[in-house]
Structures are given as structure tokens and as C-alpha cells.
């Protein structure tokens, strides 16, 4: 016989386990999930032959220190010796009968027994399994080690049908064996399991999933037990929610609760929903089960129609998933539509927190946009406003196409009390352009910077020379703000001054401004360190010669009055430009007001004295 060239792969089990723990699973704690899955599958299999059979799982913690042991027991089908050889000796072999069933995902089993059990090596150097099959035969013991060796022996005594797995914890994994931790983790994975999961520790027994709620499988009941639904969400998802929307698909084979996140979420946030397959937690981070725009919710979803990936943390992208995703999206949309119709306050609150998500959806879906447009917020020359208010003001809505354009015109536009929407943020430009389509009585128009009359006219040298003394006074008054004065003519003439920044000082100011609007954390931190940061360039305060007051300030400079007037005009320009003022500037504002009042009163008294 010719020498065979066929060899078998020699798989290094400890290497495999390394791969599993570092790359397949996100955390060693999944060993509990895998054990629960095996138990669930075993019980499901037993129910198939004994309809109405009542399954249960018991988890017991005994010992302390390096004797700390966890036992996980189920009363499912159990394994015969042949089963053990089939599933535990051949990694990758599944307890699911038939490969095709596996690929279809249409099987009543979740786990892959052998691989699932391997995950236990992330927390234990030895796995001992005792099992008794319902098919009879002797009770068996299987002992596995991470190096891939194992022993099998028949037990002298006959156990009742089912499987027990014993794990002795490694020093590194001790915290995965703490009773409190185990209890939470079991709840986390098994909260929806249809059979009791009991934890036994220090002689105390407690059923971990005692209150598996009915409304999870029948979401239509959820609205009437609001408090309970919210509390359940908090326990499972770890956040205090205030609102939720129920989800169901047409087949009724997928459903759940979409909790509205209580904090703002970014567009690129990882979507992580918790999904239960056959009522057992399968994925904590399912990203692809809801449409892209649905990043304002965190969901508890149960399904029995999707197929998990190997790590069982996501689902295979297939047509079925596509279908489920779009149906869940519809359910969310319907929930929002209901709110728009019946509970506008609820919707308003939701939009305030999740405007971006809502805008993302509105861009895609005009009907939805029409429904919720009133509550969408925009930045405008009249502050942050909701679209409904802006429309009610009746003007044409002007908008800019970019933030830079908005910057360039908003001083002058606000000075002319012209309503301009800053549509430079993501989605806003599209929404503005679309608005007349969904509301035919509303006009919107994109505006370019040069359309706003902000052309400055130069002042002739001879005229400028007249202002020499006044400008000197102005420059010295503004010096401490790293600002200089210049005379120009511009419209509108009732705008006395216009403040512009050099790029460098604009950087510092932009920082202060950003922090004032959201958090002044970073600028105040910089403030503590500001000693070394003095290199900012000069900004410019344009004095409008077309303005009568400015004209007077310029033509009759007064050593006392002019500097204060200029300072006041400076801080006023800052206020109009929505720049954050520093302490020094605020002080100028306060003192200036008091001084002017004082001067005004004195002037009055002097007049009275004259009279």
C-alpha cells in the first residue's frame, strides 16, 4: 500500500483556548453564559421528548480561596458515553443534529456544547462534568484539562438524569466566582429563561430569575406596567431610563423594549443592544439589529428567528436580519408617531435629548419629518430655537450652508435682527432645503456671506487724521485685551462697532466660547495653567463712522470718557458676538455701567444746579 500523504491537523488545545479567550469572547465572564446555554439546550432537548417537562438549573458555590468551586447543574437530557465522545472529544462538533440545521439557524438549540464548555478554561484549570443520560446507561464522569487531555470513567452510583459541571476557580478569576457577581451575571444572562435558575451559596437558595416579566414576550402589555418596565431596564441595562417604546415584528417572533437613553448619544456611538435568543441572553452588543438612525435607544430584544455568529455577540447579516431590522425600525417609528399625535410633551423631551437621531431619521423620511419638525432644534441668530417657533415667526428662513459662512455673517445679521439659521451642522442643510417640500406655506433660502451687506468703506486719510487722538486713546484702552481699534464705514449704521478676531486669539476665544456653551472644564483647566500662554495675536474693533455716537466719540475725544466708552463698546461687541467674556471684561462691563449711571446722575444734578 502506498504511503498515505494524508495527515490530521494537530490542534493545540491550550492555544485554542488562548484564542477563544482573547479573540472570540469579549470577557471571561461569558463562561457563565455558555454553561447556561448548555443547560438550556439540554432542557429544551428533554422537553422535546417529554412535553411539559419542568426544567431547572441550579448553581452552587462552595469553598473559599483556592478551593472555591462552582457547580452548575441542569436536569436536561444528559449525555451518554457516546455523546461525550462525540461532543467533548471533537471540538467544533455540535450537539445539534445535522449540519444543515446549524447553517439555517432554524434549530431549537443555541449552543455548541463542546466549544461552549471550553470557555470555562478561562476561569478554571479543570472542568469536571458528571452526567446521566435520559437514554439510560451508566452515569459518566468527564475530567478535562486545558492542555487538551481528558479522562472519562463510569461512576459506580447512578445519578438522576441531567448534567453537573464543576469548576475550581483560578486565582485570577476569583471575582467571577463571588456570590454577588454570579447572581448578577446569572440574572443578566438568564433573566428571561422560562425555567427557574437557582443560586445556592452559604446555605441560602435564591431563584435568580424569579420575576421574568410577561410583558417582555407580550409588549402590548408593557405600557400599563411602566414603572416595572423601567425598573427592569435599569437592572438589566444599568441605566435609569425614563421612557421606552415597545417593539414587535409581524411574525411575532421578534420583539422587545426599546429604552430611550437618558443621555445624549453621539452619531457614531456603538449601537449595543441586548438580545435574547430563545429567551437566553445571546448578545450584549448586537450592533446590527436596529437601523442606523436608532442610536437613541438601548434595547432588550428577544428573537427566535435570527442566527448568531460564532462569538454569539452579533447576528449574521442575512435577509432575515434585514427584514427584522426594518420591521423593528418601523415599530420604533410608529412609537414616535404615536407620541407626536398623542403625547407631544413626551416626544419633545425625547427630541431635546436625541435631536441628532431624530434629524437623521427625518432626512431619510419626509413623512416622519413632517410629523416631528416642530420640535427639531436649530442654531439661529436668535439663539437655539425649535423649528416650530421659527416658522411661527413668519419670515423667510435664511440659512447658511456651512458654519464658516454663518460665522462671517451672524454678527451683522443679528445686528440687523435678521433671522439666519446656522445649517452647517450635519443634516441641517438638507432639512432646511426640504422644509418647503413638507410644509408648503414655508419659504427657506440659502444665503451667502456676501449677500449680507457687510462691505466696509475705507475712511479717507484726511478724515482719519481727524480721529488721531481718539484712536490713540482707544488703542491704549484696548491694549490689555490684546485688541486694536480701526475706523471704517459699514452698514447697518446703527451698529456702532464690529469686533473681529485674529486667528490666534480666536483660538483662545473659541475655546472659552465652546466651554461656556457646553462645559468650561477645559478652558478653566487652561486658566489654571495660563501663565505660559500669552502669545495670542491682536483682535480688531472696527468703529463705524456712519454711526452718530461713534462719530461723536471720535470727534471729541475726552481723556476720561473716551477710553471708558471704547471699553464699553468693546464688551458690548463681545456680547453681541456671543463671545464668552473673561473676568476682566466682565468687570469693565460692570464698572462701566455704574460709571455711566453715576455720570448721568451728576450731569442731571449739575443741570438742576444750573437751573
Amino acid at each position, binding site marked *: 500500500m502506498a504511503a498515505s500523504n494524508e495527515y490530521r491537523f494537530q490542534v493545540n488545545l491550550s492555544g485554542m483556548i488562548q484564542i477563544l479567550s482573547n479573540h472570540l469572547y*469579549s*470577557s471571561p*465572564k461569558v463562561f457563565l453564559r455558555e454553561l447556561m446555554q448548555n443547560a438550556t439546550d439540554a432542557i429544551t432537548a428533554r422537553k422535546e421528548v417529554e412535553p411539559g417537562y419542568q426544567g431547572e438549573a441550579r448553581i452552587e458555590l462552595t469553598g473559599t480561596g483556592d478551593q472555591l468551586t462552582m457547580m452548575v447543574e441542569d436536569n436536561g437530557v444528559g449525555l451518554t458515553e457516546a455523546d461525550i465522545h462525540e461532543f467533548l472529544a471533537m471540538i467544533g462538533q455540535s450537539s445539534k443534529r445535522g449540519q444543515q440545521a446549524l447553517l439555517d439557524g432554524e434549530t431549537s438549540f443555541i449552543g455548541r456544547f463542546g466549544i461552549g464548555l471550553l470557555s470555562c478554561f478561562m476561569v478554571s484549570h479543570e472542568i469536571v462534568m458528571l452526567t446521566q443520560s435520559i437514554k439510560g446507561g451508566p452515569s459518566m464522569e468527564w475530567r478535562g484539562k486545558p492542555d487538551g487531555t481528558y479522562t472519562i470513567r463510569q461512576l459506580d452510583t447512578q445519578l438522576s438524569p441531567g448534567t453537573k459541571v464543576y469548576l475550581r476557580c483560578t486565582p485570577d478569576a476569583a*471575582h467571577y466566582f463571588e456570590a454577588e*457577581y454570579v447572581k448578577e451575571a446569572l440574572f443578566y444572562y438568564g433573566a428571561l429563561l422560562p425555567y427557574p435558575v437557582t443560586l445556592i451559596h452559604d446555605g441560602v437558595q435564591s431563584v435568580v430569575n424569579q420575576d421574568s416579566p410577561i410583558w417582555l414576550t407580550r409588549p402590548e402589555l408593557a405600557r400599563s406596567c411602566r414603572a416595572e418596565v423601567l425598573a427592569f431596564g435599569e437592572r438589566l441595562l444599568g441605566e435609569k431610563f425614563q421612557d421606552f417604546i415597545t417593539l414587535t415584528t409581524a411574525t411575532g417572533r421578534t420583539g422587545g423594549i426599546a429604552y430611550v437613553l437618558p*443621555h*445624549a*448619544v*453621539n*452619531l*457614531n*456611538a*456603538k*449601537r*449595543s443592544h441586548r438580545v435574547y435568543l430563545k429567551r437566553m441572553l445571546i448578545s450584549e452588543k448586537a450592533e446590527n439589529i436596529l437601523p442606523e438612525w436608532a442610536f437613541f435607544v438601548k434595547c432588550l430584544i428577544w428573537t427566535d428567528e435570527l442566527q448568531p455568529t460564532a462569538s454569539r455577540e452579533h447576528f449574521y447579516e442575512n435577509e432575515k436580519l434585514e427584514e427584522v431590522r426594518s420591521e423593528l425600525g418601523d415599530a420604533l417609528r410608529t412609537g414616535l408617531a404615536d407620541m407626536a399625535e398623542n403625547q407631544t410633551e413626551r416626544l419633545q423631551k425625547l427630541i431635546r435629548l436625541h435631536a441628532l437621531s431624530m434629524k437623521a431619521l427625518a432626512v431619510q423620511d419626509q413623512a416622519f419629518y413632517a410629523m416631528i419638525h416642530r420640535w427639531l432644534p436649530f442654531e439661529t441668530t436668535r439663539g437655539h430655537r425649535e423649528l416650530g417657533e421659527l416658522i411661527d415667526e413668519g419670515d423667510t428662513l435664511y440659512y447658511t450652508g456651512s*458654519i*464658516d459662512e454663518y460665522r462671517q455673517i451672524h454678527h451683522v445679521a443679528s445686528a440687523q435682527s435678521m433671522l439666519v439659521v446656522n445649517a*452647517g*451642522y*450635519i443634516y441641517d442643510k438638507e432639512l432646511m432645503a426640504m422644509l418647503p417640500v413638507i410644509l408648503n406655506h414655508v419659504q427657506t433660502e440659502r444665503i451667502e456671506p456676501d449677500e449680507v451687506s457687510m462691505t466696509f468703506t475705507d475712511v479717507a486719510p484726511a478724515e482719519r487724521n481727524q480721529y488721531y487722538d481718539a484712536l490713540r486713546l482707544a488703542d491704549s484702552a484696548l491694549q490689555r485685551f490684546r485688541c486694536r481699534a480701526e475706523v471704517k464705514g459699514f452698514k447697518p449704521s446703527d451698529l456702532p462697532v464690529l469686533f473681529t478676531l485674529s*486667528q*490666534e486669539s*480666536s*483660538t483662545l476665544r*473659541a*475655546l472659552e*466660547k*465652546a*466651554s461656556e456653551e*457646553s*462645559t468650561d*472644564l*477645559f*478652558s*478653566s*483647566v*487652561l486658566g*489654571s*495653567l495660563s501663565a*505660559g*500662554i500669552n502669545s495670542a495675536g491682536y483682535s480688531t474693533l472696527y468703529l463705524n463712522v456712519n454711526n452718530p455716537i461713534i462719530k461723536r466719540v471720535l470727534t471729541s475725544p475726552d481723556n476720561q470718557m473716551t477710553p471708558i466708552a471704547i471699553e464699553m463698546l468693546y464688551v458690548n461687541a463681545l456680547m453681541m458676538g456671543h463671545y464668552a467674556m473673561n473676568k476682566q471684561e466682565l468687570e469693565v462691563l460692570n464698572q462701566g455701567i455704574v460709571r455711566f449711571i453715576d455720570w448721568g446722575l451728576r450731569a442731571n444734578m449739575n443741570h438742576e444746579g444750573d437751573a
Partner: protein
Amino acid sequence: MKTEMDFEDLMEEAYQLPSGPAKLGFLEEAARVADVNGMVEEAYEARSEIVDVATFCGYPMKALIAFSWQLGKFDQQPELYDEETLLWSYKWILGKMPDFPEISREKIMELLEDFGARFKSYGYSERSYWYYRFRIFMDFGELEESGRSYDKFRTLDRDFMSDCEACEQDEIMRYFMLKGDDEKVLELAKPILKGRMSCAEIPHLTLSEILMPLYRLGRTEEADKYQVKGYRLIKGENDFVQSFSEQMEYLTLTNPAKGIDVLEETLVLAADHEDAYAKMLYYAKAAPLLRRWAEEKESDGYRLRLPASFPYEGDPGDLLKLADYFAEHAQTVAAKFDQRNGNTHVSSLIA
């Protein structure tokens, strides 16, 4: 005279340079040119580089300023920029904050919360938040609170925004070091020393950190080996000023002559360092080294070679005076940290 270069030229120059002050100079000029020309995205790019370079070559303040700017821009238009890179550098910034005694405890806690909220808003694991909380309380010298965060962060899942395992391990070592548990420190160092965990800064940091624990357990033979290996990795690198101090501390006890070599070779890096904490530790360890060296016969008439920029006016041959100079600086800075932290943790570290 050099004519003004445009943004691309400056960035290209910068990319060709090794990390250090010269590279920073080019990057800062590039950022200025971008600012002047209204090239916001380029300015952002230049500042990303500044944050990266400055963080790891001794200019945490420059990093902070550039980062603050970036964060401001990012908040205005998050869709324009990559949040992963930005939030990753937030970790560096946050980690450096406690090293500035001028920044109050409250501010640091606020930064931590802001950091946590941002991570949360992107759906990243809370592990990073708890890990940095663990580190910050260590910096404050509040080991109990730090321990609570330690217990918490270990139970949370890693994600791609988590610090690498080697870095985490190194911080955990620091925790047990502060608790005085040398055995545990060395046990934790094992996977690093065996090369199973490593990154750009590990084992560099680790090899110096374990010297004193090994010394205290009488394992100087091993320590000597690691000292040589460790010093080779960090020599001439501005990022490892704290490690130089650990080297000096060990050499003071075992080989002061070699310690003086380390001092002379690294003082220029430490003196110009913006990280007040690392510099303080360095000065604190330089003092006893000089005193110990003064006791040696060979030190007779020895004058310490000081860098040209070093602001010490006295006689470089008066080793004891120099030692006082270093000690004084360290104590003054330590007192500032103590005042900020509201305890005597930092001064007890250098006592």
C-alpha cells in the same frame, strides 16, 4: 534667512523628525500657518500630531493646549473629525492632569466625569473610565478609593478603546507598589518580564519600577540585570524621566558611581520637563544620590557636569549644596501637590 514655508512643507519636515522639541516646533508653526489661512482641518491635523508628540516627549502642557483646541473644534462639528483618535488622546491628557499641581482636585474629577460621559456617549466600555479613576485616585494618594475603582474596572469588559493590557498591568503594579506589597508587584510584573505583555512603553517603565521591590527582597542580582536592560531601553528618551529617578534610587544604594552617570546623562531631559510630578521625583532622587556619592572616595574633587541651560549658579563641585538644591526643589513642588491633594501623600513618597 528662511522664507515662510507652507503647511504641507512644514508637516513634511515634521514627519521626518524624531519625536522631540524640534518636531514640535515644526508642528506648532504648521498649526499657526493653518490657523492664519483658515485651514481648520489642517490645523486640527497638526494639533493631533502636537498632542501625540508633546505627550510623549515631556511637554504635557503643550499637549493639553492643543487638545483643548481640538476638543473645541470637535464639539462644534463632530462629524468632521475622527472621534476615536481624539478620545484616545483624551486618555493621555486625563492621565497627565494630576501631574500639574495647579489643577485642582475638583477640576480633575470634573475632567474624569467629562471623559466618562464622552466615552459613554460613543458607546465605549465604561472600563476606561473606571481604570482612569483608579489611576487618578492613586495619584491623589487615596488608595482606598483607588482600590474600589480597581475592583470595578476589572469586572468590566475591555474594548478597543481600553488601554493595552501591558499598560494596565503596569498601573496595577504601581497600585501594589503604593500599598507596599513588593511580592505582589513582582508577581504582576512576571508576564511583562517574560515578554508576554508589551507595548511602546512596556517593559521600558516596568524594568525600572521593579528595581526597588527586588532590592528590598534581597534579589539584587536580578535587579542589576534589569537595571542594565531597562536603562538601555530608556536612555536619552524624554518620556522616561520618572524611570530615571527609579534608576537613580536603586543605584544610590548599589552603585552610586553608575548613578552619577545616569544623573549626568539625563539631567538635561529632566530639567526642561513640563511634567512637574516626574521632575519632582527626579530631583528628589538626585539629592540622596549626590549625598551618597559625596561619601565615596572617588568623588573627591568631582564636579557634576551640569547642562548649559541649567539654572544653578553655585559651585558644581559642592555636591552637598547641589543635593540641597535638588531636594529643595522637590520639596517645594511636593508641598504644592500635597496642598492640592489635601494630604501628605506626595511628600511622603519623596521623604
